[in-house]
């Protein structure tokens, strides 16, 4: 397929063939020259955010997967918006605690679906990549929850109703996602990370509801909000430290 026709008509119209013809008399590796030129011309400019993320995560591929999947950005927004909208509606109409209790799992499942075989067209290919699709999913999950929590905090400054959603759901979900990623990174097992995070979430709820059986209150972060925030930052720091840059002993993403 790389063969180009040699007739004069083709050469007259083909820049690559003209370059080859022009260099044929010189003692150079034409393929090497051409690939070098093509690599420069076709290279996608890498922005500062992607460069920084690549260094932080110790994986340019993970940074690329996280930042530059424009055709999938809509699914991020839709998954988040759907979970929040349904949750707000159910909570308002029923007053039941189930939404707050299940919000992390529901949101996680939504994101998993957005990047799973149902929506991601290249899902089958991603399953064969060295960077595990599951670790990509965990990083994306944390990114979604983190961005939403940040936006929620900003919205809380101007709209009081946003405060409840942010404190009750978004910050705990971000903390749980960060914990899952940290455990997955250190144990080198995405499955262990997810299991540990769900286990911790359930343990918190059960412990807080043990005396009162009031699951609605147990799901509200209340005094734990500071713990969630500190835990989130700590887990992110741990992940970045463990995977950090080019250190030879850095944990590698599974």
């Amino acid at each position: 397929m790389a063969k180009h026709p040699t007739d004069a008509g083709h050469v007259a119209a083909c820049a690559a063939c003209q370059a080859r013809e022009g260099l044929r008399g010189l003692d150079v590796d034409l393929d090497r020259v051409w690939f070098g030129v093509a690599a420069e011309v076709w290279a996608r400019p890498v922005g500062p955010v992607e460069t920084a993320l690549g260094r932080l995560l110790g994986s340019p591929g993970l940074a690329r997967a996280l930042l530059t999947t424009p055709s999938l950005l809509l699914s991020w927004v839709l998954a988040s918006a759907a979970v929040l909208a349904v949750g707000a509606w159910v909570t308002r109409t029923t007053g039941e605690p189930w939404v707050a209790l299940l919000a992390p799992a529901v949101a996680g499942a939504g994101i998993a679906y957005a990047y799973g075989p149902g929506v991601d067209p290249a899902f089958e290919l991603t399953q064969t990549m060295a960077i595990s699709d599951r670790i990509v999913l965990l990083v994306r999950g944390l990114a979604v929850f983190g961005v939403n929590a940040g936006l929620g905090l900003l919205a809380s400054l101007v709209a009081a109703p946003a405060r409840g959603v942010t404190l009750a759901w978004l910050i705990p979900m971000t903390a749980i996602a960060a914990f899952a990623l940290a455990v997955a990174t250190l144990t080198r097992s995405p499955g262990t990370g997810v299991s540990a995070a769900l286990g911790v979430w359930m343990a918190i709820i059960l412990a807080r509801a043990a005396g009162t059986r009031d699951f609605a209150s147990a799901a509200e972060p209340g005094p734990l909000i500071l713990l969630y925030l500190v835990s989130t930052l700590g887990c992110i720091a741990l992940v970045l430290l463990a995977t950090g840059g080019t250190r030879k002993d850095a944990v590698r993403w599974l």
Partner: protein
Amino acid sequence: MVVAGNVNANAAVSVQARSVIQRFGRTDVLKGVDLALAPGVFGLLGPNGAGKTTLLRTLATILTPSGGTLRLLGLDPTQPDQRRRLRRRLGYLPQSLGYYPNFTVAEFVEYFALLKEMPSADVNRAVARAIERVGLSDRARSKLKTLSGGMLRRVGIAQAVVNEPDLLLLDEPTAGLDPEQRVGFRTLLREIGEHGVVIVSTHLVEDVAAACSTVALMDAGRIVFQGTPDHLTSLGTGHVVGDSPLERGYSRVLAEARA
């Protein structure tokens, strides 16, 4: 057992499967497949539903075998660390290539080069080489949604070969390619087959005849023939079903397997 070349001489570039079973629910899609492959181009023939795609997906580490053992490039794909090392050296083209419509050809190939953990410094040159090898230089900056089916197939081949894989798995790679492109594609297969194991699943027996050093015929989850294309051709002597000698051999083996 299919044996192509001297597997033991270079286990680091080989495929070894022993009694591999793939079970979905109560159905065994693969019923004990044995393979031993060394570098070269290996053709996988068979009717629809024979298990070719399932075998390729198993070798591509998408599916974990329900039974049996696999060693790919000397590595155990069930072990996370080894699976990761294996995937860096793997190229895979699925039967139905999913793609991101707004990516350009170069962006798509680069995306998978990065996910294969190629060194960043090598990525751009490797992308250029892969795109050139599939003859899409003039469309490198075109968005995928603007390409024809045959061009998309070639984009899929480019992402599969961008890391110069030691194990290349291609499921119906020539679907949508015109005759000239298929000739070029066979050359590419032979080039990669010089240093790596290439497994091509196809319905087109002429692809096998032209490009493959070894061929297997699958039916109902089993390998019912293994050998060279010449051997398969010779089996067709005197058989009337089929338009070419190789097709007659294919038909005869299949008929006898089902008898």
